[in-house]
């Protein structure tokens, strides 16, 4: 009953349907994250007194997490390369490495937030912290969701099935990385 319709394999644009869909997903995610970050930026530029709050975020932890995500993007694209060659098991291995990066990211974030909350900087402390937790939290949810889907794709790929999906989850993963590439300077460097 859930057979694959003929429609899914047609391609009048030349882009396979799965990949075309991922581009549209990214377009909508750009406006979601963009809306949130634009709202943050307007508030930050209009409230210079937030500098006292932003000074608290730990640049080194942020930089480490950036490194983790960059590396996980690297392993994701290597996974794509392997999948293209038809090597599902190698692709799965690279995807598992990427998921490891995701887990590291979340663990570090948990540690970081734990410290900040214990020190009294909660989501209601002031405007900056509200945005900080909301934006980074939304990003973290996308990391977790992406890792879960990646796990499913990796499991299939290891059995040689649906190898084309390795590229698709990879594109999504790179997007999550790109969002963080912008969150990092906003929340940690040029604060």
């Amino acid at each position: 009953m859930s057979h694959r319709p003929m429609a899914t394999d047609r391609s009048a644009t030349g882009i396979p349907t799965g990949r075309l869909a991922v581009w549209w997903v990214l377009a909508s995610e750009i406006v979601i994250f963009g809306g949130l970050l634009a709202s943050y930026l307007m508030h930050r530029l209009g409230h210079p007194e937030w500098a006292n709050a932003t000074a608290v975020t730990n640049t080194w932890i942020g930089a480490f997490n950036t490194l983790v995500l960059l590396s996980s993007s690297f392993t994701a694209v290597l996974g794509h390369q392997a999948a293209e060659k038809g090597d599902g098991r190698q692709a799965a291995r690279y995807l598992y490495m990427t998921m490891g990066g995701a887990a590291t990211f979340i663990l570090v974030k948990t540690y970081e937030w734990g410290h900040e909350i214990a020190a009294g900087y909660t989501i209601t402390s002031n405007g900056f912290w509200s945005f900080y937790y909301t934006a980074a939290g939304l990003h973290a949810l996308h990391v977790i969701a992406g890792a879960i889907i990646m796990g499913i794709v990796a499991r299939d790929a290891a059995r040689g099935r649906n190898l084309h999906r390795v590229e698709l989850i990879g594109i999504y993963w790179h997007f999550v990385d790109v969002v963080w590439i912008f969150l990092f300077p906003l929340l940690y460097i040029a604060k």
Partner: protein
Amino acid sequence: MAHAATADAHDHSPHAHHEQSRLVKYLWSTDHKVIAMQYLFTGMFMALVGGVMAYAFRMQDAFPGSSIPGFGVVAPGEYNSLVTMHGSIMIFWVAMPVLIAAFGNFLIPLMIGADDMVFPRINRLSYQVFLLSVIVILASLFVPGGAFGGAWTAYPPLSAQAQFNQTGPGASMWVIAVALEFVAFLLGGINFIVTLMNARAPGMKAFDIPLVCWMIVIASILFMLSVGPLIAGAGMLLFDQLVGTAFFDPARGGDPVLWQHLFWFFGHPEVYVVLLPAVGFVIEIVAVFARKKVFGYKTLLYTTVAIGVLSFFVWAHHQFVAGIDPRMANIFTITTLLISIPVAELILVIIATLYGGSIRLTVPMLWALAFVFEFMIGGVTGIYLGASGADVYLHDTFFVLAHFHYTFFPIAIIGNFAAFTFWFPKMFGKMLDERLGKIHFWGTIVTFNAIFIPLFFLGLKGEHRRVYSHLNFPELAGMQPLRVFATAALVVMLLFQLVFLYNLWKTFRKGPAAGKNPWQANTLEWTTTSPPPHGNWPADQMPKVYRGPYEYGHPDRAEDYWPQNLPPQSA
């Protein structure tokens, strides 16, 4: 109903599998036609809910404080909830699911010659998420405090603080329900867009696609690109409500105007999201029942794209009196007045299509013509509101309300009835009764005008929206007869819907069979059985396309229509 579709599927489809239980067939199907039916009937049910709410608050407005038959006395807080829920339900749970999800799901694969949407399981998921949103919003009617009462626009601080809106749990459930509905439509939208872009039948070039498919897909694109900031804003509002953040609390460094911008950046493109499919239905119907090629296919298409782009540049006309910078108000006045030009262009092309045609006044055609007429009134009255100077007086009065009902009602109700009566034979394999259809049509249209024309005058006199009883305003109290008249017309309109329901019941029981192509139309959905089987056509008979969708009255052809899938030698 839908069971006819899958019953046929079981007999004819080469993909026939094991016998499916009823539960699987109806609730777990990935067939785009079944999902379309799910959206259609859910939307129609919600229309009844929204209509009953309108009945209740109109009766309160006409006879303040009295006990309303079938409802009881409406308390002031309840009035706010009714008004809020009516607006929210009609836009998010009636207009969008029926216009886009139901008809988009049903028509797009059929009209482009595909066997289903490209992502059937995501399609099913989108309905399930949508159903969840329906459950949440209906459940909010029963929580302590009742349904959210802060207007469908949910401006904070009113919407953020329970002490102000008096409907704390309901307010958060409203935000969650709306967010779920957005997710459902994002999922659905991706399906529509990718299916149209990629899954066309061989031979179908971009300009051979029926315009209604373009309209629904462009609407989906508009939705996807505009909803993002509001999703972010909804999260922020939810946090303000539940966690105590101050995103929109001015006393603690937040800004309520930010919410307004987030909301209307989406809210304005949203009205075009619902307008475009309705215009698409009208175009299809007019071409078929004028037996004439659409006057300007490319004009319509490019104009629609222009409307889509421009719709992103007009949003702050909802905020002229909210305290935005007057220089921004200048800019938005200009863009708002500008956008009336391409919209008028659409209407003119439709009229030009009618001109010189061989008109058949069937029930769908009556609805389509009514759309043009009524929407023009709505559009023209919008011009007054787009001019910020006039809007200073008219904002939040019943003039605005009458304006947007003269646009929304044609879109959501007239457009839906037009599409429903037109494609009913294809969906269910039977022909509706024309005489009952005409009675229902005239009853609805006449009463519609009787309800809303008085409201223009009330608005011009300064009567404000969202007010529990206008008898509290001595200078407006003398106009109570107009309010009573409008309410009486609403009651009559609701009664006329019984004619429609009776027509449905009678037809399902023993209506005449429809055949494949009762309207003698060109587009691909009319080349398969009514209703279509699972997979739409036998796998070895998927259509190929040789011409555009509107070849009516072609000189090379004996008949006055030329279906898209017939080879050139069939002249």
